[in-house]
């Protein structure tokens, strides 16, 4: 269990805007992803926990041990904090062999005990054969496994990973996820993983925290966050979302339904609690929510919204159609090829896919 309540402020400089970090997060054993765009304060949060940066206010507990408390003036130096850190860039010491890098982490132990643990760790991460090599003679994946092995040698009570898979290509990334899953399974460690890659959240995380402009704006399982972004910022971060503004034309509390006016068409929608007829709501739509078809003339079929095709992006098995209205939809490539070419389209959207953002 790791808990961090951090406030840190940066005044505006000549070349930088003011930045304000204020987060409170709890990390249970397992992998929690800290998800956010560049400059949102992800790395700064990790640095505060590891002791490389000092918050102005707050309290940080690692494994129920206070490593920082602004009020009680507790501020342990990084070397006394029981958390392993894997850096974004490769941080294996370039002038030492892999084995020497690992030995650096067990310097406090008797020589034989240290050597035994280093040997075990090399074995566990399949690095025994390259133990004598320098980091520049290792592959990207081996280097990153080496960094994790080195961090685990100190037997940390929490693990902080700063975009560890960045710069690895797809197969190496898979391999690396497997390593992380193995660690998650074998050690009951709270692991905080910083990333801005969505697939990493789904691959690894049981829990996801979204950070934006130094604030935590949503928490939950990756799927629940993805299905129901709490704000347009989160939706924008998750990518793949289109926002559209609609007017509530009719509300029926009895049948828990509504009618929405969108791009001049009226479509059935869910009930919007707390809204009135005539209110405008911001809808958050994913390409997979749209059921696309060609429309015969100017008008769309009842219950469909009319769309004008702007651009087609071909993908391996699907095509993504981008419409002038700002929406996008997916369709199988074969299906698309069978249809005659036309700019006039329409889409049906299941009422439960119409989610309103606050």
């Amino acid at each position, binding site marked *: 269990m790791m808990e961090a309540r951090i406030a840190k402020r940066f005044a505006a400089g000549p070349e930088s805007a003011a930045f304000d970090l204020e987060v409170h997060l709890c990390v249970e054993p397992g992998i929690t992803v800290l998800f956010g765009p560049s400059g949102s304060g992800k790395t700064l949060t990790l640095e505060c926990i*590891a*002791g*490389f940066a000092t918050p102005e206010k707050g309290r940080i507990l690692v494994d129920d041990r206070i490593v920082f408390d602004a009020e009680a003036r507790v501020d342990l*130096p*990084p*070397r*006394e*904090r029981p*958390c*392993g*850190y894997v*850096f974004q*860039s490769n*941080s294996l*010491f*370039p*002038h030492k062999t892999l084995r020497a890098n690992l030995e*650096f*982490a067990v*310097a*406090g132990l008797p020589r034989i005990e240290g050597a035994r643990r280093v040997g075990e760790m090399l074995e566990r991460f399949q690095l025994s054969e390259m133990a004598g090599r*320098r980091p*520049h003679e290792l592959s990207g994946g081996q280097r990153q496994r080496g960094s994790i092995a*080195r*961090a685990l*040698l*100190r037997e940390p009570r929490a693990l902080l990973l700063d975009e560890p898979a960045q710069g690895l290509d797809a197969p190496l990334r898979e391999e690396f996820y497997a390593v992380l899953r193995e660690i998650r399974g074998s050690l009951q460690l709270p692991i905080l993983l910083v990333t801005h890659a969505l697939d990493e959240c789904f691959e690894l995380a049981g829990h996801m925290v979204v950070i934006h402009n130094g604030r935590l704006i949503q928490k939950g399982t990756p799927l629940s966050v993805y299905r129901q972004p709490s704000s347009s910022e989160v939706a924008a971060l998750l990518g793949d979302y289109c926002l559209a503004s609609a007017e509530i034309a009719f509300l029926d509390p009895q049948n828990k339904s509504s009618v929405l006016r969108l791009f001049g068409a009226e479509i059935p929608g869910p009930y919007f609690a707390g809204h009135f007829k005539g209110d405008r709501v911001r809808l958050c739509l994913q390409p997979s929510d749209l059921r696309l078809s060609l429309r015969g003339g100017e008008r769309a079929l009842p219950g469909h919204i009319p769309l004008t095709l702007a651009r087609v992006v071909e993908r391996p098995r699907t095509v993504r159609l981008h419409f002038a209205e700002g929406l996008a939809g997916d369709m199988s490539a074969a299906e698309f090829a069978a249809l005659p070419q036309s700019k006039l389209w329409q889409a049906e959207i299941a009422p439960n896919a119409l989610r309103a953002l606050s």
Partner: protein
Amino acid sequence: MEINWFPLWLSLRVALLATAFSLAVGVWIAYLLANRQFRGKELVDAAVTLPLVLPPTVLGYYLLVLLSRESMLGRLFESLTGGPLVFTWKAAVLAAMVHSTPLLVKLVRAALETVDRTYEKAARNLGASEWRVFWRVSLPLARRPVFAAAVLAFARSLGDFGITIMLAGNIPNRTQTVSVAIYDAVEAGNETTALVLVLAISAIALASVYVANRWNEGKALR
């Protein structure tokens, strides 16, 4: 005509010792300036830079007053070593050291600041003390530019004139270093001696700069 090589040997010995002492003092100051925030940091920085801009005779005068046989430090040195400092070859070492340390501090500081902080952070995260971080990570990573700095400091210690002549004097076969000997030779009209010593010292300086550049360029730090 017989050329007296003593000044050249003395200079080389003095410069070597001065470089060793410079490294011991300079690397430590450079480390403080590069890594620590402390009160009076600007002052230390200025004090280290001063010898680069003050006339050497002025520095020599200060040191002479500070270390003369009547001064406190001078007497302390005498009681510790049994002999005076000023007007001996030891004073020449000190002079060369004062002459070269500022350059060394500047270069070593720059070298230490090129080390990627990530490695130092990683070392701290792995439980290393600041001492260990420095000796096992920062310094080894900066070893090429630090070595280059030492070579340049050596070349510079070889060339001091002003401080040496004030502090160690010009005693032939005792404290006469090569730059002083060249001046002496020109004064006395010994053109050949002057020329030979000038060429010798130029060759050493050129070689030093060449070696320093080679080390500084080197491949990426490994």
